[in-house]
């Protein structure tokens, strides 16, 4: 029998430290936003040589004013042959009014040609293999919708758990979820991982996953509440967690295996998802055991 409840103060302190550290990182360092959030155009460039990001910047920086502050990141896929490097170049061109500009089809092909030529002049063979764009409007919209999705999901869950369990359980679950989301986002910020739409999907999946874990514990508490009368609430909660711990460990481990392998071997655009899920599985499991139930002990009605 592991004592989850007795040591709850220690874990609450640990969680608080993690949450505060995450918030500090989010607000000071910020996020490495994907092109969907920034708005602008993403050019995927393939160069038939091993060149560095600064080489690419040097070659393209004079092509157009927006290239001077372009965000250049090297992208790697497992199947890439040697002697080839791929880059994602994100630019946010502005029009005369300072608004975000969308390239026309013609401008795109002219720009692609210019880039290829610039590389040719430096004795490299390059190819533009992707040109994606998102207007500032779409980026703004995705941002708004993402926040709405998270807030409304939490509200709906609070209502559902209150109806099925007790209000305090709902509060416990939502606190645990906010805890998980903040820490996961903190990891994105801290490790400078790209926050794109897939990453948002990961954060939302994590809500479902962590909740699943929490509900299983709550369900056992509810069942034991009906049965046992003599024991204290602390013992009861601790017993309940211990009764489901094997299931929690097995489920978390199997999910973790799949997600972690995805993180190790998957392609670039799904990596931010796998990263979020890997962190989320660990944090979500931890919070179900140490946070969701222990913090609400005082208020549980027998």
């Amino acid at each position, binding site marked *: 029998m592991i004592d989850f409840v007795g040591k709850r103060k220690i874990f609450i302190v640990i969680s608080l430290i993690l949450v505060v550290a995450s918030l500090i990182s989010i607000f000071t360092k910020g996020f490495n936003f994907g092109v969907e959030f920034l708005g602008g*155009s993403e050019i*995927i460039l393939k160069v038939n040589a091993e060149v560095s990001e600064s080489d690419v910047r040097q070659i393209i920086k004079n092509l157009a004013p927006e290239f001077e502050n372009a965000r250049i990141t090297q992208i790697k*896929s*497992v199947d*890439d042959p040697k002697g080839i490097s791929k880059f994602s170049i994100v630019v946010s061109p502005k029009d005369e009014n300072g608004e975000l500009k*969308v390239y026309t*089809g*013609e401008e795109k*092909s002219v720009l692609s040609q210019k880039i290829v030529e610039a590389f040719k002049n430096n004795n490299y063979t390059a190819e533009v*293999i*992707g*040109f*994606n764009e*998102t*207007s500032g*409007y*779409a980026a703004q*919209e*995705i941002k*708004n*919708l993402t926040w*709405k*999705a998270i807030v409304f*999901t939490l509200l709906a*869950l609070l209502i*559902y758990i209150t109806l099925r369990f007790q209000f305090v359980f709902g509060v416990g679950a939502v606190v645990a979820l906010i805890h998980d989301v903040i820490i996961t986002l903190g990891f994105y910020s801290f490790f400078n991982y790209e926050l794109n*739409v897939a990453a948002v*999907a*990961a954060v*939302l*999946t994590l809500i*479902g*996953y962590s*909740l*699943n874990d929490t*509900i*299983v514990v709550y369900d056992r508490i509810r*069942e034991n509440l009906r049965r046992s009368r003599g024991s204290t609430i602390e013992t009861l909660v601790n*017993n309940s967690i211990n*009764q*489901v711990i*094997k*299931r929690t460990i*097995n*489920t978390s481990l*199997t*999910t973790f*295996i*799949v*997600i972690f*392998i*995805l993180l190790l*071997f*998957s*392609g670039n*655009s*799904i990596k931010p*998802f*796998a990263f979020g*899920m890997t962190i989320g599985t660990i944090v979500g499991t931890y919070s179900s055991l140490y946070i969701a139930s222990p913090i609400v002990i005082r208020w549980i009605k027998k």
Partner: protein
Amino acid sequence: MKDNKVRGIITLIVIALAFLSLLWPTSEGYKGLASLFSRIKLGLDISGGARIEYKVDIDKSVENPSQVAEDVWTVLRNRLDMANYTEAVVKQTFREENTFIIVEIPGATDTARAEQLIGSTGLLWFGQVIDSTTSDPNIDPNLINEAKREKAEWLLDREGKTWYLVKKEIANISNLKLVSPKIVEAIPQVDRNNVAGYVVTFKLDKQYADVFKRITEKLYVPEDLINQGGVAYQQALKKRLAIVLDDRVQFAGFVTAKITDGSALIKGNFTLDEAKQLAAILKSGALPARLEKVSSGWVAPLLGADIVSASLKAGIIGIILVLIYMIIFYGVMGIVADIALLYNTFLLLGILAATGSILTLPGIAGIILTIGTTVDGNIIIYERIKEEIRRGSSVKAAISTAFSKSFITLFDANLTTIIAGLFLYYFGTGTVKGFAITLIIGVLGSLFVNLVVSRFFLELFSGAIKVKGASKGGARA
């Protein structure tokens, strides 16, 4: 036992249906293992292609905005079909009281042509050419004055080279004009007089044929006059007919015969593609609303393919490890869990194929997550079974009790995930929606698989299930 027979039959029927929908013959020529997936529509992020998103600008005074959006969809669908983009997907989405149209063209590498086709509002009118010039008339005060005097406007031609002064009212007769006529037929044809080029022949709806006849009467110029030159020719130059589409002069030339049946042809030295596109726009008519481009781009298939193969490999490795893990920990019950897991994966793929849902990259991630929920459901049940056996129940009784006790847990845990999925679907955009769909289908599937399929196999194998520590008895309250 009778119940279990029913479970067995349902189990068989459902998986048979899933495989049927997966293996139903298609035109796509996949072979081997990949043929299992050939019926599933792949999202653009996987197959590669062009993607253009428009906001439909509907006038606030319109009574039935959803009908307008529906009309826009139909017009675009027609245009794309007629320009041979039959594989294109046109989707309508609604976000924050705005309607959006998303056009996805798998395999296309250039959005320019599609954008031209879609973005064109399709407003067509016939006019009279009064003058033409090759220099920009907007900087020449004489030409600006001429336009004012004639109540006409300077419009560029299709190639952007020549400017024509065009007026809508033919021969200054009020109401003799032809704006947005209905066109019943428009066909690109080889130009018989010019081997290299194409022309577009079209036929106006009957109700416009009469107006067209009167216009051609007024503008009629005998052929010999055109070849004559001189003053008469200068006069004739002011009687040319212009066909204007989207403020561009598509055709400007002489009418050498009175046209009574409403059929005519547009000559402009078109290429086959241009002729097809013009015919598509003529026939599909004008867009009932303005489209504002929100984003456009193309996803290189090269980029998609490597990601897919890498992710697929990773997914398969992950699944195999989970399969092994479950057998090590739960023995015979682990085998049942493995069956359940594979069952649910194929069920999910079958549903995707049957409903024509589009599988996106986050969708693949959703499938992987489904593995988690299926395994989780089984583990919850197995731990209960073990508990019951430790308490002293027989294996059969333990299975029965475990299922009735686990039901509430599974129900609550999965329903909360579905609630999250529904909100994700409702508020999410494109790829996130694809993820939400697979998540919801997957969770519902795992609930079914856990309660029906797993139970069937558990009862079938109940004789082989052994639980360590059963002799210790009810150690827990």
